[in-house]
């Protein structure tokens, strides 16, 4: 059962990392313009 002492914190840390990444994206305006982000990949930056 000692393996739990390692696994539970590891699982929580990985999950928590994902959650933190999502919050970071939310705060940094990644969800401000979903349509625009989809269209932007079509713009060529050749200049």
């Amino acid at each position, binding site marked *: 059962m000692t393996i739990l002492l390692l696994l*539970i914190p590891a699982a929580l840390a990985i*999950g928590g990392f994902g*959650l933190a990444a999502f919050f970071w994206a939310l705060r940094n305006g990644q969800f401000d*313009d979903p349509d625009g982000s989809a269209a*932007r990949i079509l713009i060529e930056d050749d200049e």
Partner: protein
Amino acid sequence: MTALRKPAPAFERTVLVVPSIHCAGCMSKIERGLGARLGVASARVNLSARTVAVEHDASLDAHDLVRALAELGYEAQARRDELAPRLSAARPLLAPLAVAGFAAMNVMLLSVSVWSGAEGSTRDMFHWISAGIGVPAIAFAGRPFFKSAWQAVRHGRTNMDVPISLGVLIATGLSLYETVRHGEHAWFDGALMLLTFLLVGRVLDAMMRDRARTGVDALLSQAAQGAMVVGTDAKLAWIEAPKLAPGMVMRVAAGERLAADGEIVTGASRFDQSLLTGESAPMPLHTGDQALAGTLNLDAPIDVRVSHAGHDTTLAEIARLMEASTQSRSRYVRIADRAARLYAPAVHSLAALTVIGWLLSGASLYQALVTGVAVLIITCPCALGLAVPVAQVVASGSLMRAGIMVKDGSALERLASVDRALLDKTGTLTMGKPLPDPVTLLTLSADEATVAFALASHSRHPLSRALAASLAKRDIAAVPLSDVAERAGEGVFARWHGLEVSLSRPQGGGETMAAALAIEGRPVRLIPFSDRLRPDAVTALAQLRQLGVECSILSGDRPTAVVEIALAIGLTAQANARPAEKQALVARLRASGRKVLMVGDGLNDGPALAAADASMAPGSASDVGLQAADLVFVQDSLLALPRAIRAARRTMAVVRQNFALAIGYNLLAVPLAIAGLVTPLVAAVAMSASSLIVVGNSLRLARAAK
């Protein structure tokens, strides 16, 4: 863009609304075009909101930027503070959903270990970790429900959120108590899973509502933001719309919209009033005539003495009508809330009776409470919360593939009950643009057709473009012409093999729209133009009748034009209806108990669209029509109407089945809960199973629009 500018270090930020942005091409054109301007530090397009945020120095103002955008080919307006975009409904729910999902997964993992036989101190540790994750997560993710439930309770009402909040809070409290006492069961997983499922439903619902934009905002941005005013010393000065006052004289260039109502002092021009009246033909106005705010000056510069400005204009009046109508519609009670009104009291009394029952039969207070909570949790309307949004999202996805966009979830509920339809004429029953008479086109010889095609393709006049588009379908090539000249107001003139050819306004004019095709040495051919019925209009109306929807025409156009269409499709009609009259008719029909569907496209239909039980607009509609309508159909065919109504009725049938399934599940599970046989495992399995069944049943709607 005239004065010399010194670069200033401090940047200002201006947000402009540009309704016509729709693709990546527009985005790069605007961002590069504006970015290349002197004084502009950066420009960033937001495609979802149709806005451009510009960082610029103090030498530029919003008016300069609007003009710069006009040079790029985009009509724009500075966003006024009072029209700042309302917040998205889905955004604030995303963080709670993420937290609830994360916590539910982790706690569920720990619960599985407990169910599979963890004992003693291991179980205690799992429960404590669950509590450590679960309590803060529930406090955060449950806030949308707690807030809404508290609002309802404080006003002496109840809604779906009251049983949810009670169930979640009591379950959490009791689980904490159990954890402290080294108990056997904790309910953190159930509470978190419930919140996750419900938040998924809410987010889906909110995302649909986000697509609906506010009609009134678009309406107000249609008026020009200001005008060049002729001062006493004959100098011109730019004055913003709110500062315009009666008595001022505005100089309006061709291609500009009027910023205020007024009387024409000098000049004569034609005006596009389609925004206000729905009438597509340009209206000639002369000195002494009244010109209205929001109309577009087409031909020549004119001076207009302001009579009404700001909130007194006809345009602002329509905006007010729409706002009032929208409020009356928001009183509609959605089916989920109507269900909750019956459901919540039943569940609460059941739980209370369970506690009392167990106490009377001699159980301890603790045991009675645990059983009561089990009843609350097992009856928590998880499947009920999904019953409506999932069905609506699946159905609207299906409609979208069929070219019908649903802007609001409750629109399908309202559309399903419709039994009366009012249809606008111009642009709704008809295509809303002049098209050449197909019979006349067939009688043109091959030479005439190719010459007409060549001439028409040299002009940007609406009639020429319609003619070119129709002839292009006949697979003919344009012949080469020489000496092509287009004279405004007359037509296109050219030479073909040495012969003079022209496509021009016919002599004498008259009521009907037509173009005259002249080839030297041959008789002049007259090509009549008229606004045509949409394809399948007659079939669509017959199908509507089969669905039990009575139709009639409600138009702002002249009676003669309306009668012609009414006879062609066999409907009764009302002509010459002003926006307020259209709205009043809708209100009268609703008061007499009819469920009214309004189909219209123009700004003049805006108030009626907003006032009706449900509303639809074609994709070619004005911005205001698009904003005010619940559903927008993008294909030419009117068959979209019966198709949308059938899909809405099918959706409501599935919603009712979902309710029956969810309640059926409760009828099975509640006796178990009352008998005290429900463990957290049973609750979790039962809850997931009922939710999955409801989702599965809703997926049958994927072909609802067929």
